[in-house]
């Protein structure tokens, strides 16, 4: 069963059409990676699914039409982490993770003991509980991503929308964060939709890729079907070689032509 079903979603920003009737779907507990060149509409699609942009077409999460949900109802199903977060530097990690309980609280009510427990569990899960008292401003890039994921997990969403979760991280921390996301997916049954710049990582972690170009779906399917030299060189205007890693995932390597002499 599809956890997310996007059907004919069209978005206009400042009267420019950014997405043209985009449709895609991902099954419950799956990982869908949105790939494509800069300006293809990846972030716009994520924001539309998060309910942050007016759009035409329908988006369903677990058969529920998001158009019928108000803010809090939607936020109980979907957690969204933008690429560049606003992290108040003096807020502590504990306070920040507790903000994830917001969709479960009434307008004027304060978080209760159950909310604190859920926030603490999420912090334990992502191994940030040990520095719950630290200020956000003092965290490293890798710690910051874990803390943000903990906040998203405290939200208890069915779907996790991640915009470039590995940007600003070194390769080791990129893999660490991607493994954590994969773990959430497997052990908590969360469905993940993320944008990813690194095509090899997309093929290694996401079971399903959607290649966007100029606001349209150019290709969709298993990594091996989408990550072909033809398609990538055409859509990205890039020179690449596609090989296969020992686990069978396509590996996309940039290639430099020898300079003409």
């Amino acid at each position, binding site marked *: 069963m599809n956890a997310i079903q996007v059907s004919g979603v069209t978005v206009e920003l400042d009267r420019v059409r950014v997405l043209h009737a985009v449709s895609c779907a991902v099954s419950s507990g799956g990982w869908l990676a949105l790939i494509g060149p800069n300006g293809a509409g990846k972030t716009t699609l994520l924001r539309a699914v998060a309910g*942050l942009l007016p759009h035409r077409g329908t988006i369903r999460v677990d058969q529920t039409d998001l158009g019928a949900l108000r803010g*809090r109802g939607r936020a*109980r199903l979907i957690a969204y982490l*933008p690429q560049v977060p606003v992290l108040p530097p003096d807020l502590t990690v504990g306070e920040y993770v507790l903000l994830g309980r*917001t969709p479960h609280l009434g307008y004027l009510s304060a978080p209760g003991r159950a909310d604190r427990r859920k926030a603490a569990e999420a912090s334990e899960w992502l191994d940030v509980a040990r520095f719950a008292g630290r200020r956000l401003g003092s965290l490293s890039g890798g710690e910051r991503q874990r803390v943000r994921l903990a906040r998203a997990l405290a939200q208890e969403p069915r779907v996790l929308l991640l915009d470039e979760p590995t940007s600003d991280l070194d390769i080791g921390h990129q893999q660490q964060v991607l493994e954590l996301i994969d773990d959430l997916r497997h052990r908590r049954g969360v469905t993940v939709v993320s944008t990813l710049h690194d095509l090899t990582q997309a093929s290694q972690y996401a079971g399903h890729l959607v290649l966007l170009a100029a606001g349209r779906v150019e290709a969709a399917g298993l990594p091996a079907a989408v990550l072909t030299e033809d398609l990538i060189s055409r859509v990205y205007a890039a020179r690449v070689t596609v090989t296969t890693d020992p686990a069978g995932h396509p590996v996309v390597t940039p290639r430099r032509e020898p300079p003409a002499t």
Partner: protein
Amino acid sequence: MTSTRGRRLRPVWAYGVAVAFLVAATLVSALVGAADLNPVATLAALADRIPFVHLPSSLDSLDRAVLFEIRLPRITVAIMVGGLLSVAGAGYQGVFRNPLVDSGMLGASAGAGLGATLAIVYLGSAGPSAVPVAAFAGSLAGVAIAYLSGAVGGSGTTTLLLAGVAVGLFLTAVQTYVLQRSTQDLQQVYSWLLGSLSGATWQQAGEIAPYAAVSVAIVLLHGRQLDVLSVGDEEARALGTHPGRVRLIVVAACALAAASAVAVSGLIGFVGIVVPHVVRRLAGPSYRLVLPLSLLTGAGFLVLADTLARTVVSPAELPIGVVTALVGSPVFVWILRSTAAVRT
């Protein structure tokens, strides 16, 4: 630097310190002044007013009148004004995610100044009694104009702040023009602009009490919503809240709080910036703590400032706005410098 900034008072201690500060400021202010009241007798007379406590006091009827009809109403008004300005400042800072915003911004001070000036200049003998109402209405009108001009199509907080600056400059220009045409009122207008609690009465306190109670209650209830806003509009919306709606409600409540204060005190600057900053340093940035602690600390701060204003050059008085600025400016510079040190 980082470690000291990270160290905070536990909430219970922070409340304890704030309450103790307010009580101490109140007692000092009740005991100090032109009329030399006997401290023991004064404390006894005060304690006698606490329900179920009966203490004989040697204060004579004149001293009692000084205490209960002059000092206490003035302290009460100072508590209300200080609390209102600080809560409004903290609320605005949360709404705009900007620590430099004050309770007088968004055209509030300029509107109040224009209202008071118009009342003094054009209403003649009825002027002085109309000043509070005119300042109250002018302050609210200033914020309303700024909000309506700045809140176009869900634009960001910067637009709103800039609209506030523009409206403030415009209203101040009108006020300056009116004043320049009737220089005989200069003295009266300026003494109002600089702020004073010298005319404080129980009646004044009673008049602003309903507005104060409603506005403070609304702002305090929105502490958690302001915490959510601190992660930015985009993520606040993704968490299921409505930043625009929260902003409108809190701005309206802060405007009402600031207008109530301005009506009885004139323009008093710096309280709305300095107090929430000090509170943040002690208790951290969560508005669920910053708002109530600013209320208590601001009240105590203004009681002390007013005590200085009426005693330093006694029997004359300093304008309280001058006292808060004299204390506030150095504190503010210190805050800026230490914040800059952390950022670099």
